Every structure is written in structure tokens, then in C-alpha cells.
């Protein structure tokens, strides 16, 4: 996959590299409207915003069309807010791949859901209507995987990785941030590697999943020897998960040195990282509940939970899920990190729970901006009020840097609190349920 980077032209490659430098230097800083140049060798955020937009207008036809419809050109962009937001729906209907990259050398990610059916009605422009109850899938053809990896390297460790001591501090740049004890992008020392148990399908099983791409990178970069993936095409291998946890040596477990997690004699068990979608995590916990058994992880372990199950839900509410994680995995709520990401974007937002942050407030990394728009007017919503979430992701150079998502949320203290999704087109004729009627307005 590394060879994919040659998909970019010289122009794109230069901009990618400059954004990479910015991302690397910015690390896990504090989000804000205007951040200082993080490094003397870096461009400013606003400079990169303008150049990224100019690149997309030049090379991505739908972005160019939207900009033309709004009468906005690169010279009209002074801040990220000036860049027209591309609707997430466009990833279901339009090709957003830049025209100066080799389409045969890009990564293709698809959202979960069912494929739309394409009919044969050609005379009037074809038909791509969906079947009753069907949802169209987003397709993100990503030409810049190195940029993708750079964002993971810069943001993931500080927000999600357990430290050997199991402790994090709340000071950016101190312990817990990517630059504290290793320079971003550097290979971690073997002693820093984290035992990881993944309940997210391996990239080999779902090559079009951006989540699997990310988790694959995390496992390769920071996973200790013996880290395992226990969710595959056949579903969750709960026995393998239990065996892995026993070997990890949590309280009450008597792991030997030959277990899947390599420990040499006498060392205390290393904190682990469990990676899971909410759906998979709930499924595992339900099976542990049914069997009335526990899989206690070593102290300081972290559970990383992400959505990844659009259109499906689990029976456990949030509080129940956290209680079950504490009861069955011995991981307290303040060590359950949540991720907010989507196929259409490159970067992710995380809760900063490991450094004492609000467990439900997603914080953007410094190269990402979030704002919330009034659902009726698309003007900026007043702080603290519910609206449509729009995200500016500088690393999304290969499709749309400014995305109007289908999510609803509230902006608080620079972070995002999610509050639902757009109610998609649905058959509701004479059969709307009470629950739908009572949904938040």
C-alpha cells in the first residue's frame, strides 16, 4: 500500500507534504480558530486552508461546481469558514477524486450499509433509486494514505493509548501527548508497544473499511507482539477473546510467558487496549453477561469505542455499556475513549477522557475545525444549541476539506457533543411509530 502515494502529482504531493508537516508539528494541540505556526518550517493553517481549497477547486469537479454555484473562488477564502461545505450525501452520488491522481492507485473506502441498485433507465439520465429501506453507501476514494496515517500518528496515541504507568496527565505536550516521550512518527520502542485486542475486522477481511484501515495502522505501529483480532467473517470469537485476556494477566488471571501477550517473568502485566465498535463491544459484553463471567484487563487498560455500525444499534444504553465494561472487563468509565470519525473524513475526533476530559465531548485535533449550523438556515448556530455538524479537515485534501455531515450536535468548549443523525428518507406513510413521533425535534 505504501506505493499508493505515487498516485499524487507533483503539485498534490507538495501540498500533501506541507499538510503532513503541519499535522506532525501540531500534534495534539488545542483547537481554536487561529493557531500559531506550530513550527518555523510550517505553513500557517490559514495558508493551507486557502491552498487546499484552491487545489480542490482546480481538480475536483463537484467542489468546483459547488464553489461556482456559491460564487466563491480561492481568492474569496480568508478562513476555513469561507470554504463551501460539501454535503456528505455527495459521497454517495459523486466522484470526488481529484483529476490529477491515478485512480488505479487510490484506497477506496465505503461506509457500512447496503449498495444502491442501479437500474437501466438511460434515456432520462439513468436511475439509481434505492429500494424501500435501503441506504446508499458513501464511497471515499482516498488518494493520500500517508496523510491519513500522519493524522493517526499525531492524534491517536495521546488520546487513546494506555501508558505503562496507566496514568495520563492533562497537560498537552506532557505525558500522553505524541511528542512527550517520542517524536511523532518515530517507531515506538518495543517497550512502548501496547497489547491490543481488536474487535474490529482486520483490513484483509474488509479492505474497503476506513475503520479497519485505521485500526490496522494502529496495530502495526503500536501493537505489542501477540496483539490479536477476534472479530472476523464468522463473527466474534469470544473464546479467543477470553483466552487473550487471560494471557494478558489481568486481576485473577494467571498468564504464563507463553501466552499470546509476550511478558517476561516478573513484570507486572502491561495495560492493554481493546479496540471495538460499540456494537461489537456490546455483543461481547452480552455474551460475558450470559455466561456470567468476567475478563478483567490489567490495571490502566483502555477501551477504545467507535461507532462503525450506522443503521444498527445494540440493546445496551450508554450507561449500561459503561457499567458492563467496568463489571466484566474491569475497565472504569474514565478509561473508555470514544472516537468520532466517518468514511467521508480523514481525521478523527476523540474524547479526552484519559486526561480528565468530558467522556462525551469529542475534541478535534488542531488541523480540524468543527462548527454547528442552524438546521433551517445553515447559519452558525448559537453556542450550546443543537444543529448540523460541519467539519473542516485539512487532511481531507483528496475529496472535500469542508464537510456538511449528516450528524446533529452541540458545540461546547471547543468540543462536540453528538445528538443524533439526519432522519433519512423513509417510508412513513400511515405507519409512523410512536417512537418516531417522540424523537427529538
Amino acid at each position, binding site marked *: 500500500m505504501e506505493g499508493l502515494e505515487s498516485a499524487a502529482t507533483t503539485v498534490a504531493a507538495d501540498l500533501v507534504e506541507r499538510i503532513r508537516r503541519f499535522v506532525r508539528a501540531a500534534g495534539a494541540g488545542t483547537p481554536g480558530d487561529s493557531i500559531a505556526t506550530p513550527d518555523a518550517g510550517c505553513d500557517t493553517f490559514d495558508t493551507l486552508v486557502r491552498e487546499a481549497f484552491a487545489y480542490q477547486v482546480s481538480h475536483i469537479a*463537484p*467542489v468546483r*461546481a*459547488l464553489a461556482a*454555484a*456559491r460564487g466563491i473562488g480561492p481568492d474569496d477564502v480568508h478562513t476555513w469558514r469561507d470554504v463551501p*461545505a*460539501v*454535503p*456528505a*450525501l*455527495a459521497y454517495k*452520488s*459523486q466522484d470526488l477524486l481529484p483529476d490529477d491522481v491515478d485512480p488505479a492507485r487510490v484506497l477506496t473506502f465505503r461506509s457500512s450499509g447496503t449498495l*444502491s*441498485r442501479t*437500474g437501466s*433507465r438511460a*434515456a*432520462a*439520465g*439513468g*436511475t*439509481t*433509486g*434505492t*429500494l*424501500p429501506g435501503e441506504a446508499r453507501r458513501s464511497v471515499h476514494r482516498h488518494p493520500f494514505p500517508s496523510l491519513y496515517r500522519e493524522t493517526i500518528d499525531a492524534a491517536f496515541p495521546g488520546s487513546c493509548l494506555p501508558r505503562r504507568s496507566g496514568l495520563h496527565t492533562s497537560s498537552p505536550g506532557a505525558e500522553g501527548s505524541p511528542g512527550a516521550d517520542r517524536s511523532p512518527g518515530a517507531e515506538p520502542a518495543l517497550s512502548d508497544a501496547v497489547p491490543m485486542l481488536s474487535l474490529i475486522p482486520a483490513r484483509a477481511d474488509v479492505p474497503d473499511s476506513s475503520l479497519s484501515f485505521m485500526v490496522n495502522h494502529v496495530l502495526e505501529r503500536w501493537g505489542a507482539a501477540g496483539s490479536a483480532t477476534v472479530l472476523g467473517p464468522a463473527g466474534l470469537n469470544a473464546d479467543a477473546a477470553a483466552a487473550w485476556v487471560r494471557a494478558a494477566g489481568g486481576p485473577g488471571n494467571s498468564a504464563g510467558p507463553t501466552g499470546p501477550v509476550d511478558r517476561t517473568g516478573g513484570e507486572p502485566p502491561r495495560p492493554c487496549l481493546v479496540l471495538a465498535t460499540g456494537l461489537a463491544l456490546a455483543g461481547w459484553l452480552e455474551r460475558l453477561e450470559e455466561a456470567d463471567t468476567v475478563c478483567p484487563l490489567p490495571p490502566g487498560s483502555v477501551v477504545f469505542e467507535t461507532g462503525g455500525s450506522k443503521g444498527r444499534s445494540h440493546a445496551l444504553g450508554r450507561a449500561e455499556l459503561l457499567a458492563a465494561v467496568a463489571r466484566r472487563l474491569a475497565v472504569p468509565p474514565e478509561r473508555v475513549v470514544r472516537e468520532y470519525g466517518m468514511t467521508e473524513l480523514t481525521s478523527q475526533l476523540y474524547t479526552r477522557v484519559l486526561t480528565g476530559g468530558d467522556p462525551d465531548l469529542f475534541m478535534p485535533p488542531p488541523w480540524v475545525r468543527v462548527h454547528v449550523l442552524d*438546521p*433551517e*438556515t*445553515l447559519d452558525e448556530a448559537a453556542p450550546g444549541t*443543537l*444543529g*448540523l455538524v460541519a467539519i473542516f479537515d485539512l487532511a481531507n485534501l483528496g475529496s472535500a476539506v469542508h464537510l*456538511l455531515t*449528516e*450528524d*446533529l450536535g452541540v458545540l461546547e468548549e471547543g468540543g462536540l457533543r453528538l445528538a*443524533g*443523525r*439526519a*432522519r*433519512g*428518507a*423513509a*417510508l*412513513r*406513510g*400511515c*405507519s*409512523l*411509530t*410512536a417512537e*418516531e*413521533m*417522540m*424523537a*427529538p*425535534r
Partner: protein
Amino acid sequence: MTSPGPWASTAVLSADDLARCAERLAAARPALAAIPDERLLAAWNRTVEAFLDPRSPERRAIQGDLVRSTGLSPAGLEAGLESVLGGVRVGIRGRPVEELFAEARALREGEQGRIAGAAESPGAGAEPGEPEGTETDSTDGFALVVLASNLPALAVQPLVAALAARRPVLLKSPTAEPVFAAAFVRALAERLPALGGAVAAVTWPGGDAEREAPVLARATVVVAYGGDEALADLAARARTLRGDRGTRFVPYGPKTSLAVVGRDVPPGAPLDAVAAGLARDVALFDQRGCLSVAAVYVEEDGPADPPAGEAPGTGSAPTGVGEHRRSRALADALARELRALARRWPPGPIGAAEAAAVQQMRAEAELRGLYRPPLALREGTVVVEPDSGFQATPGLRTVPIHPLPAPLDGACLTEILTPWRDRLQGVALAGFGGVGSGTRAEALTPALAALGVSRITPPGALQSPDARWHNGGVEPLAVFL
């Protein structure tokens, strides 16, 4: 002897209460059958008229609750009630209620007649819609009608048919809207106390198996509006509880409607009239009904390739076949009418989730350069969409207009709409030579009927079915007799 009052309550009933209610209804058919049509029709009509009158005590008593529970604006609710109740008034054109009662009487008195369920359409060739389930002792007992919450006054359609068939009926209101059916049944029984033991309107949380068991065990007919999953669950439980005695189960699942506009609509006043009717069919009930128009298919003047890039909604005059001239003209007219209707029937409170979905659609249309006449979000959204695939609407009076090449025929519609077969309820039809023998409209109806369409009307009339409407292709008396 004084008749007992009806069970009519907005409070959630217990399983014991429901068991007593079911027991009383199960024995009520002889008494109900003894009421002469004239008395029943008179009481019915006085009650309907009372609920149509915004100044009546009955209406005033429920107005606030209905506005809150339906999510419609007061004016939107008023229009919705007029539409639904207007179709079940006595003495309206065609006398559908009187006909329903007369036919039921004839059948009860032993006259042979086949009740054919056919699409309510000119020359429709639909197969009769048959209720599902076994037919055993359905000549006795009562009907359970499980109502949905998105349309006000939906209860009157099954209720009038049940009364014509002299089938005692238990109306189960959704907990989100427990008001209308209870108030209507109470008002009806006040005007005709003999009905008191044979009609009931109560509520409980749907899907509560324990609470529903005594009702399902005794109901010989179950009519249910709801989602596919809820309907399947209810049907399974009814079958289990009734065993060999059988249950006639009539499901009304999610459906949607559309409009088809042919070339025979000239520009100017005729086009404006079609647009006005379509706007009504879109805006009524804020597009939440199964008869709400979700998309419009327009026959262009000839085979048309989509233009490479249309200017976004500038309102400029469309030109030429290749630029979807007819579709754009209709889009402009429909937008004008929707804007006017938004003043007359403002939408209810706009939900953020619905707005989010529509904003996505609008922005995508802009990005694709599709033609979209300017409208505020609360007025509606009209987009000329060259992709002819049918999709459910995100709501908020959102209508894609799909240009189709001429000649537009049944085969073309079948090709486009087949994935939605049996999910389609109604079609507003215009510009195909009018209704009658030998017209292009007549040629289209078999294809539409084969797709499951049960109602074809001119624009503006789609959402106002009368008592004879074969909802889902099912003859109303066949449900309850």
C-alpha cells in the same frame, strides 16, 4: 335497559381492563346488528360534522392535544381533518358512506355478492385484495384496529367500515396520540347510546405482549397500521393466541405515493392548476401520509438527454427539450404553490433530523447543478432530478421532479417503480387525456395497479379518499364482514 358507555380512554389500560373490554366487545355483535342503518348514519354524520367544526365543543376539547401530538400546525391540522373527515361525511357526492352501509346490509341479509377488492381507478384490473389469515369464526367477535400516530383522525376510515359491517371494534390508539379516537367514539356513543357496548377506543404501549394477549386472544379480526417488523410480530402473536379459531389479519404497512404528469397539460393556467393540486397532495399532513406525494414524474416533449450542467435555481425560463423544459416549468409552478401553501398551512415544528436530511439533499442538488427553484426550507423543496430512480422522501414537503422521455407509458413506469411494488399507495395523474375509456390514462392504470397502486386521482384529490377507498387494494367491507 340502559346501554353501557363505551370504553373510551386516553389513559393506558391494564391487561385486566383490556380483558374486560374484549369480553364485552366479543358479545356485542347482536346488539350492534339490531341498530337500524338510519339511526347509525344519523349519529355518525352528526359526530363527523361536530369534529369538522373547529368551534364545536368536541373539537375544542382536543385541539391543543392534537396539535401537540401530530406535530402539525393548527392550520395544517384543520386541513388534515377536513381531508380525512370530509371523505366520511354523509350526503357528499357519490354518497360513499350510504353506499357502504347499503352494500353491507345487502350482504348481511344474505344477498350474494362478491366483494371485490380492486384498485379505485378507472378500468383498474387489480386483483381483489384479500385480507391475510385464516377464516374461521370471524362471523362473530370483534375487530381490533391498531392505529398509527402520524395522521390525525385515521380512525374514522376503519371505524365507518366496521360499523357498516356491524362488527364491534376496539380502536387501539398510539400512546403518542390517544386523544382523537377516544373523543370520537365517546361523542358517537353519546349521540347513539346503543353503540356504547360495541365500540371502544383505548391505548396501551404497542408490542406489550402481556397486555395485548387478552385482546388478541379474542379478536377475530386484527387491522394494524405500522412498520413491517411490528406488523409481523403482531400477526405472529395473534396466530399463536387464536390457534385453530383463526384470525383475519389485515396489515397496512408503510407506503408512499407519487404523481405522473403527461404532455397534455399546456403551460399557463392548466399547468398552474396541476401544480396547485400537487402542492396540496404534497403539503397535506406535512407529507407524512401514505397518500402524500413523494415524487413527480414528468413526460417531456421527446427523448431527452440530460443537459451536461444546468444552472442552479436561478428561476430563469427553461428552454428546449434537452433542458427538461416541462419539468422545470412544473417545478417553478409547484414552488410557487408550495410557497403559498406554506402561508396557508404552515408546517409544524421542523425537526432537526428532518431538516438535516433535506439540507443534504439541497446541497447535493446545488453541487450537481440541478434546477431548484428558491424556497425557504419551511416552504418545501423542489428539485428537477434527472435520475429517474424513485426514493422515499426525507419529508418537509420535499419533491424531486423526474423528467422522462416521451412517450411515457406503463412499461416505463413499471421499469422504474418495480423495486417499490406493493409499497406504492396512490398516484396523482394528469396530462394523459383525462379519465375515461380509450385515454392514455386508461392505458397506464393496469401497470400502476400491478405495482400495487390502490388509488389514482387527479392532482389535489389524492389525500382525500372516501369511505369506499380500497386502502392497499383491500375492500373495506371484506375486512369486517
